[in-house]
């Protein structure tokens, strides 16, 4: 018998209304998960890309102020016109930096969801907790939103909060209010993209979590869905790229070799010459024999033809990319595509591409290396953008994610039943 036993006492406090009831579910889940050291480690890792983003934005701010050390460092990386007027490329650099940040964070976020999500519904089903929730003033929608809020909390902490924090630091180091005008779109895009990731990945994970009472199976299903899907998509994209390259390059170079047979002394592997037996260090042209000169000319012509075919491959890929469905098989790529669209990464790469492509076209002859052909590829301002950003329509990915979300909601409502259907 305790010394001080006050027995049952009535409670005279005030109960909150029903509107924010989901918050209690979220708060409890966050409180419980934050005690896990695995989650803490994942949170720490997920903040590392944010440090890189902050570094880039800070460096750019210092470059805009023409800080000598930074200029000396960055002029090795960027063309002179960029170093001379960094303000003009501010928006593009910030966009590209944010794009890479989100690509890294997307990877971290999917792992983080794998860490925090599998047990959210499955353990409630396993321990039959639903009657405890639903017999209190908690609706099923409160339960769903509350559980989604747990995932959203961790994703906001790792995706949105660092993005906003980095933006504010970037502003602080730029010392120029014009930055807000140039880059405020990134802030809204970051918020929007973070919300899309949280809503889509969160709902999908909850649906998977409702399919089993064992969270280990849920984790395996999530890993399979995300990583196997991405692997299959990458393999299909790679195989198609290889097929295109073989069709264009091998067929083309074979035809070229048939039209231009190699001179004696050139060892061939199919349509490809061997570069091994070129006779050691080449002497000056006046010291070369006629046969060596002929071989040299032929090799140069072959390399040029090969380079042109590679350019054709690149053009073919750029032509096919807007209708390529293979990236849609990867859940992560679909999110990435929406991120590209929200951040307008394509325009940023086009602007940066111009700074690379125009000087290349003008300075190409000057940059010629002995024995290598001069690139005759036409100026293509989109070359960088075609390589670095997804080109298929963003609404395809939005459609895939939308269907996945609707399916997730359907599964969730079927698996998490009201008490009217429990028995």
């Amino acid at each position, binding site marked *: 018998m*305790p010394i001080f*036993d*006050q*027995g*049952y*006492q*009535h*409670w005279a*406090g005030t*109960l*909150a*209304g*029903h509107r924010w*009831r989901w918050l*209690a*579910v979220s*708060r*409890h889940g966050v409180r*419980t998960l934050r005690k896990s050291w695995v989650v803490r480690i994942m949170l720490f890792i997920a903040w590392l890309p944010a440090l890189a983003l902050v570094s880039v934005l800070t460096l750019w701010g210092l470059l805009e102020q023409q800080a000598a050390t930074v200029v000396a460092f960055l002029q090795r990386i960027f063309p002179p016109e960029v170093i001379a007027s960094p303000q003009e490329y501010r928006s593009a650099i910030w966009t590209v930096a944010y794009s890479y940040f989100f690509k890294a964070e997307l990877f971290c976020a999917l792992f983080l969801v794998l860490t925090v999500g599998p*047990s959210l519904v499955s*353990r*409630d089903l*396993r*321990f*039959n*907790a*639903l*009657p*405890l*929730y*639903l*017999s*209190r*003033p*908690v*609706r099923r929608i409160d339960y769903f939103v509350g559980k989604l809020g747990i995932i959203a909390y961790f994703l906001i902490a790792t995706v949105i909060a660092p993005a906003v924090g980095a933006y504010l630091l970037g502003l602080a180091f730029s010392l120029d209010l014009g930055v807000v005008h140039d880059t405020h779109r990134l802030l809204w895009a970051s918020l929007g993209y973070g919300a899309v990731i949280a809503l889509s990945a969160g709902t999908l994970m909850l649906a998977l979590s409702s399919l089993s009472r064992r969270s280990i199976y849920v984790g395996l299903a999530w890993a399979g869905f995300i990583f196997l899907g991405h692997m299959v998509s990458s393999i299909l994209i790679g195989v198609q790229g290889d097929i295109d390259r073989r069709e264009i390059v091998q067929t083309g170079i074979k035809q070229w070799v048939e039209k231009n047979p190699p001179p004696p002394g050139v060892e061939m592997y199919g349509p490809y010459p061997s570069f091994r037996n070129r006779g050691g260090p080449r002497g000056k042209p006046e010291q070369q024999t006629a046969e060596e000169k002929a071989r040299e000319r032929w090799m140069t012509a072959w390399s040029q033809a090969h380079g042109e075919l590679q350019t054709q491959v690149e053009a073919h890929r750029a032509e096919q990319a807007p209708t390529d469905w293979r990236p849609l098989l990867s859940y992560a790529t679909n999110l990435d595509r929406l991120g590209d669209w929200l951040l307008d990464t394509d325009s940023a790469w086009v602007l940066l591409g111009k700074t690379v492509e125009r000087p290349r076209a003008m300075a190409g002859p000057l940059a010629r290396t002995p024995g290598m052909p001069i690139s005759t590829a036409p100026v293509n301002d989109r070359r960088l953008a075609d390589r670095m950003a997804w080109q298929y329509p963003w609404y395809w990915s939005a459609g895939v994610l939308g269907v996945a979300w609707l399916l997730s909601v359907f599964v969730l409502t079927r698996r998490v039943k*009201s*008490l*009217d259907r429990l*028995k």
Partner: protein
Amino acid sequence: MLFRLSGVTKTYGRITALRDLSVSAAPGAVGLLGPNGAGKTTLIRTLLGLIGFDSGTGEVLGLDIRTRRLDIRQRVGFMPEDECLFPGVPGVGFVSYAGELCGMAPADAMQRAHEVLNYVGLDEARYRRVESYSTGMKQRLKLAAAIVHDPKLLILDEPTNGMDPAGRQEMIELARDLSHGKGMSLIFSSHLLPDVEAVCDHLVVLGRGALLAQGGIQELKKAHPNSFDVRVKGEPEPFLARLRAAGADGEVRDDGLRVRLPDGATPDLIWRAAAALGEQVRHLRPHRSSLEDVFLEAVGD
């Protein structure tokens, strides 16, 4: 009025769980009795607004069941029959979470959780994870979670299920204290008639979804003025024959005789018959219906 249902019908496909049920109860401790499938759980879920019903009207604590479901659940504490837990938390976290789900502020819920865990006798186990609790501890934990927000009405669905005799007695004492000592209204659903009798003042007996009997337990356990339970030292049959000769009637039961006196007769008739037969009367008391009698009579035994 604690609750009132009027003409409520609830069907699950072809099965009718509640059949034009009209029942009401005043504040106090109400026992809910009925055989399996009688509709007890459906009635409880209807009162909590957890399920819709096909026809009829109803209110709990003056709140319409159809339109004020969340308000009803906020004012009612419910301890479900099934084993159910919020996983991965200690006992005190379990109860405070239950309070937060009812709308309590986190600090209030935590303070109150400690209080009610003390009250139900789980003070020393409050920091243990709930998965490690025994069956009896889980039942008491669910009770603590049901009363954490100090409800006006507490609904206990089979609260003594799976408990050992000592734990069962503690649970009954807690339920009785809450209903009779703390002024909390109670709906106590159980198969165990002694438990209901120990806790409740009123009784609602259901069968096949319909109301079979209702009223105060003392009223239902009515006294029968002309009927007596009698035990004698010798064989009961000769004594019963002697009573019949004197105008009474009765039957031999396991533990003696049940004697019905003719109108206008007094127990003196029994004494005189015993004296005439030289029989020794060991037990004589007026017959009262037990709760079991009431229940069996209601469900039509």
